[in-house]
Every structure is written in structure tokens, then in C-alpha cells.
């Protein structure tokens, strides 16, 4: 094994940063803590770039490039190594994770400047980077699972960062527990692989899978594994029905929402499904499950996003919805398009969250969009970067989101693996809604008159920016340079990020997907629709989604800029439906009634009935009776020699009597 790439450096540096800040950071100044955190993530990013440059010089046959460090588990014929791999997919992921991660680290230095637990925050953030990079670099499912669980832990720690707030603490727990449900599916899938393939290493599993036929009907082994993997991905990537934790995860500090709950961690499920593509290629049923879950999630989350008033919650539902798109892409076996959207989404959604954080920062912790407005003049940097991100996510032509989203929607219609009109139709509707809720956010925040309380201390349960005075527009201040520069960089990426994958129909060469192609081992299939329908249809569909985005924009403009009194009237008119959507379809309440409450009741019964009454009862009872008995018996131990003598005599008499009785 040569160690040409030293891949271990990439996760190793953030781990070292996390250890230094976590163990010693309490004594360091804020300057030192930020220096350690920025250096570790920044050098990791630079090293990822070095790897990318060297990767270009690697011979095609040498892929995937593997660095084997040690054997972790060996049991019989099964073994799991500590080994990292590098191929095109991994390369994209490490660049996104370290790049966006580093920018968010920089931003956090400014954002968290006045918060307590500064060193703790950066330690967790670095720890997250370590686990996320382990997840994407692992060359086997088991090591991937380590990263998978690790990012869950980091997410839990960071959601509950303001742990003195009860809502933050319980949001952290909710995220962790909901993820456990998904992990259960993932684990079962891993067990099935060990059982049937005898290995968890990607190359060995996929080699065995490739020799199996495509499961066209019924539920076979590959379908089972695929669906179980999807259950795991649903938990981590917040898809129906396990998405409920993500909106609550907004309790964490905003940079965390940007890094973990938008740009990177939640895309782990998409990465995992894309990585497992040989399994999904051979099970159309599993692919259909992925696509349906994805399209339903995209649609429903978008409808909820339409009416939310908390700026971060809108973005949270938007994230869920965009993740749904990625799963649609995976579900029609257009994994390249899914990863493309993953990347562009990482840029613009991280930017949206950071810009939202900047808005919240400017307003001293206010998160309710109804109390914003007219901020355009006060925070121009935030405004312009937010505008770039909004245009990108809404699918405005020639921004990054346009290319990736249209690639997904084109595949959703035309993919030989189950593309059809329904996916496209829902996707197009969702694109319209995306455009609507994003421009709604944009207009509500930056246009019109300022609606916040003036002069009042307005820390409305927000981020705990207690040092700021909310209220008077005059006090609203632009964020410091350390926060605006990452915004600007991400804005540039949001605008131009899509040009790596300009589709052929627009005169590009779709470099991005061709770059990823070697990773996806599709079994041979005829590309009927794609070849037959050709350019005209693709342009038509592209026009359709763009029209949907424009309609969304116009509606938002009409309702929230031109006639701001209309929305409340429409809401009143819609009545029940509005309340249903506003309350997120009462899904949380439903889960509470169906799962949580019975579970708590049953646990209480087990606790009081089985644990306390039976198990503790038996133990305490025996201890108690032993105590009673000893209490009586100890009276024999009087310390009076003559009483001992009497006992001895009595004993002797009894023994003699017994012997005589036996002897008779």
C-alpha cells in the first residue's frame, strides 16, 4: 500500500482540532480557539484540494484508490479494515464538506463571538467534520456507519448547544431518537450483507451484487437491502416519514443549521444511496421506493414551507424538500444528477442559512419574518448574497440550482429506470412552490416597511443574542467582515457552481456527471426515451419548470410586496386547510399520539411495574429478609462467654442425641 494521498490527514486534522479545543480550549482565549479550529479545517480543505489535483494524474485503472491502515475486526472469514478510499464521488464529497465546512467555520467566528461555550462550539464543529469525512472516505459500510453515527452525535451535541433552553435540549434528543429509527434499518441491511455477501467492503459487496440478476418482480434480497438502506437514509436525510427532527433541529446555532442540517450531514443519506448504486440498479422496486419517498417529501415539505413564519423553519422545510429532489434523482437511478444537486444545494442552502443567521444577528435574535421587513438598506451584503442564493434555489436560469434541478427533473421524466410524468409533474409543482416560499422570505425580510418592535428589547426566544438591542431600524447593523466574506464566497459559488454540469442541450458537456460516471455501475439498459425524445422535449420541460418558478415569483411579489394585505385574507378564506398546513399537517401531534405517548406509557408501566415492583422488589425483598434474619441471629453473638458455652453444650447434646437416635 502506498500512502501517496495521506487521506487520513483530511479527517485527522479536524479530529486533532476537536481534541485540542475540547480538552484544552477552556483555558484558551477566543482568538486561539478560533485559530485552532480554522487551521484544522482550513488545512484539511487545502489537503483535499491537493488530493483533487493529484487525483487528476491517477491512472483510470487504479480507481478506486484505497489506503489501508489497519484491520479493525476479524472474525472468521469476515473482516472490516480501517481503510479510506478515493474515487470521483468521494472527491466531490470531501471537497464540499471541507470547503463549505471551512467557510462556515470562518463565519462562526463572527457569529458566535458573543456566545458562551465558544471552545465547546468549535470543538463540536470540528468533531462533526471528522465524522463526516470518515463517512465519505470509508471504503466499507462499517466504517461508514461509524461516521454515520458520529455525525448524529455531533448533530445532537450542536442542536442542544444552548442546552439551558429546554426546547433545544429536547430537539437534540428528538433528532437523535428519530435517527435511531433509521439506523435500525441501516443496521439490518448491513447484517443482511454480512450474511449473504460475507463482507462489508464496498468493492467486495458490489462485485457479488453485480453477479446477481436484476430483481424485476417480487421482493428479493437486493430489494430488501435497498429498502432498508433507504430507511436509514430517510432518518439521516430527513425524508418522509422520519423528517420531523429537522425543523426542530433549528434550535441549534445558525451556522450549525447551515453546515449540518443543510449542507452536509443531511446529504449523507443521498451519498449512501448513491454509493450503494449497484444494489439499487438491480432492484427496480427499491428504486421506486426511493423515488416515491423523495417526490412525496419534496412536495409535502414544500407545502409546509409556504406558510411558516420563522425564517429558519422556512429554510428547514426547504432543505427537506430539496433533499427530496435528490432522492428522486437517486430513485430514477440518476445518481450523478442527485450528487450534482447535493453540491449546488450545499452552496446555496449554506448561504441561505448563513445569510438568515446574519439577518438574525442584525436584529438581535429575531427570527419571525413578520417582525422583519425593509432590511435591504441596512444590511446590503446580506441582502445581495441572500438574493443570489434565492435566485439559485428558485431555479432561475443559469444559476447553479437551475442546472442541477433541471437535470433531476429531466431524469425524473426521461430516466430509463422508472422516470415518468408523475414525478416530473410533482417536481415541477414543487419547483414553483420553492420559488414562491423563497421569494416570500425574500420580500418579507428585505422589502416593505420594518415591522419589528421599535426600541423594545426584542429577544423573542431567538438565538440568545442577549447583548443586542432589537427594534429600531437605526440599530440594525451589518455583520462583521468575518461573516460577510464567507457569504460572498458562497454567493459566487451559488451563481457559478452549476457551470460544472451544463447539460448538453444547452451547449454544455455535462462534465460533472461524466466525471462521476465511473462510480455508477449501471447494468446495460436501453436509453429509449432519452434518445427518442431528444433536445426538444428536454428544452420544453426546462421551460416548464422555469415557468413554474416565474409563477412562484410573481405570486410572492403580488402577495408580499404589491398587496401585503392579501395573504391574511387568503389565509382566513382557506380556513381549515391553512391551519392544517400551518401546523405542519399535525404530523408531530400524530407521531406524539401514535408512537411517543404509547411508548412513554408502556415505558412507565415497565418502569413501575416490571423494574420497580418485580426486579427491584425481588432484590430488595431478599436483601430485606436477609437483614431481618441476621437481626435475629446476631443476638446469639452476645459476647457473653457463658452463653457461648451454653450453645456449645446444647450443640454437643444435640449431636450426641442424634448419634444415639441413629444408633438405636
Amino acid at each position: 500500500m502506498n500512502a501517496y494521498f495521506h487521506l487520513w490527514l483530511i479527517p485527522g486534522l479536524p479530529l486533532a482540532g476537536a481534541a485540542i479545543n475540547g480538552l484544552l480550549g477552556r483555558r484558551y482565549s477566543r482568538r486561539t480557539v478560533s485559530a485552532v479550529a480554522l487551521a484544522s479545517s482550513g488545512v484539511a480543505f487545502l489537503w483535499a484540494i491537493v488530493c483533487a489535483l493529484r487525483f487528476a494524474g491517477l491512472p483510470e485503472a487504479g480507481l478506486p484508490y484505497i489506503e489501508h491502515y489497519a484491520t479493525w475486526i476479524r472474525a472468521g472469514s469476515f473482516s472490516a479494515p480501517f481503510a479510506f478510499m478515493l474515487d470521483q464521488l468521494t472527491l466531490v464529497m470531501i471537497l464540499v464538506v471541507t470547503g463549505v465546512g471551512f467557510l462556515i467555520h470562518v463565519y462562526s467566528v463572527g457569529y458566535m463571538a458573543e456566545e458562551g461555550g465558544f471552545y465547546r462550539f468549535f470543538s463540536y464543529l470540528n468533531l462533526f467534520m471528522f465524522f463526516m469525512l470518515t463517512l465519505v472516505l470509508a471504503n466499507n459500510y462499517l466504517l461508514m456507519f461509524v461516521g454515520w453515527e458520529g455525525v448524529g452525535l455531533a448533530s445532537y451535541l450542536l442542536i442542544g448547544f444552548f442546552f439551558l433552553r429546554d426546547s433545544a435540549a429536547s430537539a437534540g434528543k428528538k433528532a437523535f431518537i428519530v435517527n435511531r429509527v433509521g439506523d435500525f434499518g441501516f443496521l439490518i441491511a448491513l447484517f443482511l450483507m454480512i450474511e449473504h455477501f460475507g463482507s462489508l467492503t464496498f468493492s467486495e459487496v458490489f462485485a457479488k451484487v453485480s453477479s446477481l440478476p436484476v430483481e424485476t418482480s417480487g421482493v428479493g434480497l437486493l430489494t430488501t437491502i435497498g429498502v432498508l438502506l433507504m430507511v436509514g437514509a430517510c432518518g439521516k436525510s430527513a425524508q418522509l416519514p422520519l423528517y420531523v427532527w429537522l425543523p426542530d433541529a433549528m434550535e441549534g446555532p445558525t451556522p450549525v443549521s447551515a453546515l449540518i442540517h443543510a449542507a452536509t450531514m443531511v446529504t449523507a443519506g443521498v451519498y449512501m444511496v448513491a454509493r450503494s448504486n449497484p444494489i439499487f440498479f438491480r432492484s427496480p422496486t427499491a428504486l421506486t421506493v426511493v423515488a416515491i419517498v423523495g417526490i412525496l417529501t419534496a412536495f409535502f415539505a414544500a407545502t409546509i414551507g409556504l406558510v411558516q413564519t420563522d425564517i429558519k423553519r422556512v429554510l428547514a422545510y426547504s432543505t427537506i424538500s430539496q433533499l427530496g429532489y435528490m432522492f428522486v434523482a437517486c430513485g430514477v437511478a440518476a445518481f450523478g444528477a442527485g450528487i450534482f444537486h447535493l453540491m449546488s444545494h450545499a452552496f446555496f442552502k449554506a448561504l441561505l442559512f448563513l445569510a438568515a443567521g446574519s439577518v438574525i444577528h442584525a436584529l438581535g435574535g429575531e427570527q419571525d419574518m413578520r417582525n422583519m421587513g425593509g432590511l435591504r438598506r441596512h444590511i446590503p451584503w446580506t441582502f445581495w448574497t441572500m438574493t443570489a442564493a434565492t435566485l439559485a434555489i428558485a431555479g432561475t436560469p443559469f444559476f447553479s440550482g437551475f442546472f442541477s434541478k433541471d437535470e433531476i427533473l429531466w431524469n425524473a421524466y426521461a430516466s430509463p429506470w422508472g422516470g415518468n410524468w408523475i414525478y416530473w409533474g410533482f417536481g415541477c409543482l414543487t419547483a414553483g412552490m420553492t420559488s414562491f416560499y423563497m421569494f416570500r422570505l425574500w420580500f418579507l425580510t428585505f422589502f416593505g416597511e420594518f415591522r419589528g418592535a421599535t426600541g423594545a428589547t426584542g429577544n423573542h426566544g431567538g438565538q440568545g443574542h442577549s447583548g443586542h438591542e432589537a427594534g429600531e431600524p437605526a440599530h440594525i447593523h451589518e455583520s462583521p467582515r468575518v461573516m460577510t466574506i464567507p457569504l460572498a464566497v458562497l454567493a459566487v459559488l451559488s451563481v457559478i457552481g452549476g457551470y460544472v454540469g451544463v447539460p448538453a442541450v444547452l451547449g454544455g458537456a455535462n462534465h460533472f456527471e461524466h466525471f462521476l460516471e465511473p462510480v455508477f455501475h449501471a447494468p446495460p439498459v436501453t436509453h429509449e426515451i432519452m434518445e427518442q425524445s431528444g433536445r426538444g422535449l428536454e428544452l420544453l420541460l426546462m421551460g416548464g419548470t422555469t415557468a413554474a418558478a416565474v409563477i412562484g415569483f410573481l405570486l410572492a411579489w403580488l402577495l408580499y410586496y404589491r398587496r401585503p394585505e392579501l395573504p391574511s385574507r387568503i389565509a382566513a378564506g382557506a380556513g381549515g386547510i391553512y391551519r392544517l398546513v400551518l401546523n405542519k399537517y399535525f404530523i408531530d401531534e400524530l407521531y406524539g399520539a401514535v408512537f411517543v405517548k404509547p411508548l412513554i406509557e408502556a415505558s412507565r408501566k415497565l418502569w413501575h411495574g416490571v423494574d420497580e415492583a418485580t426486579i427491584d422488589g425481588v432484590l430488595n425483598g431478599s436483601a430485606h429478609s436477609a437483614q431481618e434474619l441476621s437481626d435475629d441471629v446476631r443476638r446469639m453473638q452476645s459476647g457473653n462467654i457463658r452463653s457461648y458455652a451454653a450453645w456449645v453444650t446444647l450443640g454437643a447434646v444435640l449431636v450426641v442425641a442424634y448419634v444415639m437416635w441413629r444408633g438405636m
Partner: protein
Amino acid sequence: MVPLGYYLVLSVILFVCGVAGFLVKRNIITIFMSIELMLNAVNLTFVAFAAHWHVLSGQVFVFFVMVVAAAETAVGLAIIIAVFRTRETLDVDRVNLLKL
């Protein structure tokens, strides 16, 4: 020749005297003497049976008992002296520091 029963009855009387003294007396020396009395009652039984059945082993055993008794006396008296030196009493009821 004295019949066997006489020896045994005497032995029982001696033994019961020993037990009674052992249980009733409070002076350690007296208790000690009662133990000796019991041992010798047993010795008497051994010797009586040995003579009756013309078996030597009973007599041999008596010597063992005597040796053990002598050793026990030596150790026991040493303990009694140690007790007396520290407690300045020979009353067993007052030598009860170990009780709960």
C-alpha cells in the same frame, strides 16, 4: 473386679459436674478446671473400656488426651494471665468487649 457400669456412672457424674461448672461459674480459672474435669471424665471412660475389652488403643488414646490437655493448659493459663493483666478481673461476664 469393679464392673464397667460403675466406672461409667462415675465418669458421667464427673462429666456433668464439669459441664455444670463450665456453665455456671464465672471465674475463668474455675471454668478452666471444669474443662479439665470433663476431659478426665472422658479419659476414665476410655481406660474403663480399654480394660474391659482388653484393647490397648483406649489407653493409648488417653495419653494423647493428656498431652493435648497439658498443651491446652499451658496456652489457656497464658491467656488467662494476659486477660487478667489487661482487664484486672477474672469474671467472664466482664470480659465481653467483642459483643455487638
